[in-house]
């Protein structure tokens, strides 16, 4: 069934890493297979944060060769970044197979993404000025601890706890999805899309790439495509409610916005709390209570509803 959550502070930064970890841990029972975070920090001018992995967590348990391959693949990614003129400002190994780079790059982002993902086993989790996307197998506490997210300061964040149903238990099928190749757009989803394959083929014909067979990835690609054609986030989301078929509630974030959309059947849950300076939303109120233990007024958004908040 999966759990989704999001939060946004209006006009200030907070420890969104710790807050989202707490919310997602409360939703563990909705999906223990993997957990993902899309965190929006305080961007530095001219800098991008690149999150990528060069192997699946599961690969690391199979044989000794993979450890050497991970080193070779990372070196190849470095070489390709240099070749395209991306300056590596600093680097960090989040795990043996997942990395966080701060880069300076003003070239074609799609070309850069395609070239890096052409390296065997490589997948870009996110590129953004503000966005940092982390996902791995295990619950929120484990993933947050593994990637050191508890100290992450930022304005907003979205996350997902996954119950694998229609695709594998692996990182590439975990949410959130980055809206390749666009800066700072990420999506989490609870539900099933029934016109996935038709839309996927259409999107592929338009030049978009899919890294998984997970239907949720389509939402990120769809929104990216609509925004590429000039629509703003809210317009793209409203269109998606009519064009995407199935049952879904999804949450999307950009560098300065948080949005949610619910299908016309309202078959997937979402509870919302909104105050003057903070908005939190989750599949279950218990997740919001993990950040706000005191009594608060919450409500369910209506069927077919689209809402967007500014940070």
């Amino acid at each position, binding site marked *: 069934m999966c759990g989704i959550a999001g939060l946004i502070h209006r006009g200030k930064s907070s420890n969104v890493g710790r807050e989202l970890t707490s919310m997602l841990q409360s939703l563990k029972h909705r999906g223990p297979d993997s957990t993902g975070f899309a965190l929006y920090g305080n961007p530095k001018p001219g800098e991008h944060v690149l999150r990528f992995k060069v192997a699946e967590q599961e690969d690391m348990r199979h044989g000794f060769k993979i450890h050497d391959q991970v080193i070779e693949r990372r070196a190849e990614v470095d070489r390709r970044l240099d070749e395209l003129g991306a300056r590596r400002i600093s680097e960090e190994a989040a795990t043996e197979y997942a990395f966080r780079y701060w880069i300076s790059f003003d070239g074609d982002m799609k070309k850069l993404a395609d070239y890096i993902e052409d390296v065997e086993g490589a997948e870009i989790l996110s590129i953004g000025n503000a966005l940092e996307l982390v996902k791995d197998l295990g619950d929120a506490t484990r993933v947050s601890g593994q990637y050191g997210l508890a100290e992450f300061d930022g304005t907003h964040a979205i996350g997902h706890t996954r119950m694998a149903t229609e695709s594998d238990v692996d990182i590439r099928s975990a949410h959130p999805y980055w809206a390749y190749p666009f800066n700072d757009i990420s999506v989490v989803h609870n539900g099933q899309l029934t016109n996935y394959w038709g839309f996927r083929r259409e999107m592929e014909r338009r030049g978009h790439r899919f890294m998984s067979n997970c239907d949720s990835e389509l939402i990120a690609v769809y929104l990216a495509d609509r925004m590429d054609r000039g629509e703003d986030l809210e317009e793209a989301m409203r269109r998606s409610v009519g064009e995407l078929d199935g049952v879904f509630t999804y949450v999307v974030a950009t560098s300065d916005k948080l949005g949610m959309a619910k299908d*016309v*059947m*309202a*078959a997937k*849950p979402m*509870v919302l709390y909104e105050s003057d300076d903070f908005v939190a939303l989750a599949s*279950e*109120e*218990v997740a*919001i*209570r993990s950040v706000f*233990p005191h*009594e608060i*007024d*919450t*409500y*369910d958004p*209506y*069927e077919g509803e689209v809402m967007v908040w500014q940070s």
Partner: protein
Amino acid sequence: MAELDQAHESYELGMHTEQLSGRTQQVFFSAEESDNLVYPWAPEVDFDKSAEVDAESLGQKAVNAEIRRLMSEGFGTITVRNPGAKHSLGVGILNRLNLHFDGSLGYFGCGLLDGPNVTVSGRVGWSCGENMMAGTVVIEKNGGSTFGAAIRGGDLVCKGDVGSRTGIDQKGGTVIVGGRAGAFSGFMMQRGRMVILGDAGKNLGDSMYDGTIYVGGRIEDLGVDAVEEELTDLDRHWLTRKLAQYGLETPNGVENMTKIVSGKQLWNYDNLEPTEKKLVL
């Protein structure tokens, strides 16, 4: 009208006689069976004997077990503090009891009740009051989707808004919503009464077999086989009394509410022979 007593009125409204007569339907319960009204193992409780449970550090099972333990010791009035939107609280109580939740409940709260009077000062999540058989549940704030799913009896009241599929498969009792109800409310309703004082979302009463829905606000659209019918004096009298019971009123007055019932076109479908069904399909 005013001289009608409640028993007479309920008979006139069809609450005792509306039964599904399709081949696959059965009558499971009759209000006349007095031995069904109290369970033989139900503990004697004293409403003047009260207790409090602090749920803050307890899991949901522990909270429910504590309510049972207090009932077995004769406590008839129990207040649960800090429910914290935990799931499945206050379920399966087959007893007379005054139960108050000081805060909000998560999913599946107050399900399978048969007898207690429950109040919730906060909000409730999905599927509150599911399969409720008797008693009352009154929620002060909003409710989630599938509010009162498959309810069979009693009064389930939410003073705020509720989500979609409210009263799905309702088999009896009364569901009252003070605000708006979402899409597909009254879906496959079989018996009972639903009162929505605000607006109703799309596909109201879709595929309803029987029962009645009253709406005070705007109806986005009606579902398949749901049709509008004229309000009668009995309807107006019953609505006035029922709403007053819970301190509720409809902005445009009871006389301007819309009454929705089943057109019974799909319902008759069940009486068709298999070959006839093929023709319909």
